[in-house]
């Protein structure tokens, strides 16, 4: 099902908030598609979901689950 902008924006916010996407030090938050795909892959792998890099239903459901407010250290690049 085609996703609306709000759903995509919520997913990017989640990846940013929990350390899967790196906040650029300067300039606006416009991420390259390949960065978002890489962040999604890291999230899917850490959540033991099929690693597709796509914002599928299971990934969105996982992002809605209650959780701790601290960042996750699972994206090696952002962690570094």
């Amino acid at each position, binding site marked *: 099902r085609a996703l609306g902008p709000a759903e995509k924006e919520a997913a990017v916010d989640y990846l940013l908030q*929990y350390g899967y996407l790196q906040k650029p030090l300067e300039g606006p938050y416009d991420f390259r598609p390949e960065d978002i795909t890489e962040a999604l892959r890291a999230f899917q792998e*850490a*959540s*033991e979901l099929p690693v597709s890099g796509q914002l599928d239903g299971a990934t969105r459901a*996982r992002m*809605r*689950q*209650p*959780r*701790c*407010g*601290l*960042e*996750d*250290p*699972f994206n090696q690049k952002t962690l570094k």
Partner: protein
Amino acid sequence: YRLLGRWRKKHLTFRILNMPSPSTLPPHTARAALLQAFQYWSNVAPLTFREVQAGWADIRLSFHGRQSPYCSNTFDGPGRVLAHADIPELGSVHFDEDELWTEGTYRGVNLRIIAAHELGHALGLGHSRYTQALMAPVYAGYRPHFKLHRDDVAGIQALYGKKIPEIEDEEEEMELPTTPQVPREPSPMPDPCSVELDAMMLGPRGKTYAFKGSYVWTVTDSGLGPLFQVSALWEGLPGNLDAAVYSPRTQWIHFFKGDKVWRYINFKILPGFPKKLNRIEPNLDAALYWPVNQKVFLFKGSGYWQWDELARNDFSHYPKPIKQLFTGVPDQPSAAMSWQDGHVYFFKGKQYWRLNRQLRVEKGYPRDVAHNWMHCYSQTPDTAPSGGDTTPSATGTDYSPTGTTLDTTSSAIDSTLNTDHSPRDTILDMTS
């Protein structure tokens, strides 16, 4: 596991600054959940946590919502972010007050598990990539038999080392009888407001203990203490006790269950216990220590035994009728104790009886245990006159477990107890 930092000391203090709304979790249950959360970590690492009621603490637990003057990370209402914490050596642990915090149920969010997770952060652990680990970022739901994942244990031991069992304990453990320990499933956590007590005991340092199922809690004038599993305080002690009694004369605490008796000094079991009862009938109902003659009284059905802990006892004339000595008390009491106010109390069902110095039940009794001892106010107050005041009162007029209003009596008891007996380890002739 991921390490984010560590404390340079292993003995930490903590303070619970506020509690979640009592509508979802009674304060004593919330408190027990928070205290048990610390135990997960102190069980596997050489860490100790001491609670302070005021002033500075290393770790500070609090609940806040969307707005908080103290935290720049506001929460987001029910769901999504449940809690957060600072890494060492900052020590703040915050819970979202809008969550449905629960204990012992699949409903809502289990406070104990989330508290243990956030304490993991406060101790220096990051999120684990094992989705079933306590330190996984996403809440995996309530698990009745929850315990730490090996990744959690490896992480905390990487920071603080392994917990070293005290050698002494090990030796004593070797001495305990080799009778196979019956596997004990903890019973469900009781609600102090609606239980029939297994036992009541005025213990060392004037603390009043209530026992029910696998749990024990203290009763004070300001409320109830947290519920602990009896085995967490008295190692090796089973739940569902028949009776409990502390003797200031010998400093011994005796617990009775079935045909066995356990003996402790404070929280330490003495070698050779538990022992078998064979000159006293098994499955007692209650026990109390009477400071006036410094004897222990054991009750079962309509009979009692009087036992001198330090002498050879002749039980041939026992059991004697309870009513012969304790006028007006019910048969088969569920609990009994002499209390700080110099009165003797008997408990049965949801009621209790108070006896005067002549061991005669006083007028106006029985009364409601929940209302007068367990600070449960939603119940309808006693129908008997209670002196007209609304203060909860186990004594009918003034309830002050701290004993401040009772100086003369307790000192009278003290003076009677100031014997120069030095407990000698005589043969417990009940079991010989």
